[in-house]
């Protein structure tokens, strides 16, 4: 790799790292805010359910059925936390990446974990979306929820692609080990 392309790669990696940090912090804030307002709506003031996070109004559901309300919001919190964890794993890739020796067991295991979590997240997202649809029917809350239950098929697709890249990476790891033992 020549010096110019190396500097360019480093700049791109730095920009991506900054973006991923922003995504990670954003997801953490979202998860924390959801968890906090959920706790407030259940224990202090039920009116908090009218604006759980950025206009998410599930007050009608809370009035109708506390169990389903709790289950749905807990699922939303779980999905948001899982998304934050996924972004954290991607961030970890950037933090452990060594361009001189890119193939490592740690990196391969990170890629594998990301793919498994992304695929699982996609399926859980699908289930929660179906559950929310069944629960809320044509209520306007479904519109608010769309923002929280986006991209299930995208996550599954992303997970499969990452899984394949992980397999190629595994092969790269073997090649690197062989290359290191070639004199």
């Amino acid at each position, binding site marked *: 790799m020549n010096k110019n392309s190396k500097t360019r790669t480093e700049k791109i990696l730095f920009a991506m790292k900054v973006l991923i940090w922003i995504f990670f912090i954003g997801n953490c804030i979202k998860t924390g805010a959801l968890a906090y307002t959920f706790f407030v709506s259940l224990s202090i003031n039920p009116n908090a359910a009218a604006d759980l996070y950025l206009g998410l109004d599930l007050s009608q559901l809370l009035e109708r059925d506390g169990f389903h309300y709790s289950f749905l919001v807990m699922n939303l919190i779980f999905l948001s936390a899982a998304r934050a964890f996924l972004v954290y794993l991607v961030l970890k890739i950037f933090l452990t990446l060594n361009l001189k020796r890119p193939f490592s067991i740690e990196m391969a295991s990170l890629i594998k974990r990301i793919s498994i979590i992304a695929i699982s997240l996609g399926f859980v997202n699908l289930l929660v979306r179906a559950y929310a649809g069944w629960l809320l029917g044509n209520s306007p809350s479904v519109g608010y929820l769309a923002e929280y239950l986006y991209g299930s098929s995208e996550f599954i697709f992303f997970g499969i692609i990452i899984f394949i890249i992980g397999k190629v990476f595994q092969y790269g790891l073997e090649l690197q080990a*062989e290359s290191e*033992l070639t*004199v």
Partner: protein
Amino acid sequence: MPIIVNLDVMMAKRKMSLNELSERVGLTLANLSILKTGKAKAVRFTTLEAICEVLECQPGDILEYQAE
């Protein structure tokens, strides 16, 4: 592995140390060590050529096949 590396035998015959061989062949001590201890998975023809040239021997003097 059934391929035995007899580098140490040839070095002893030529009374050459690993340091000297490393300098004359242009290989790092770590790589020569990998080769000497039989941990290497592959040997480049260029490396083999350089070793044979310095030790004045044939590839067969360095590498040997022994059935397991």
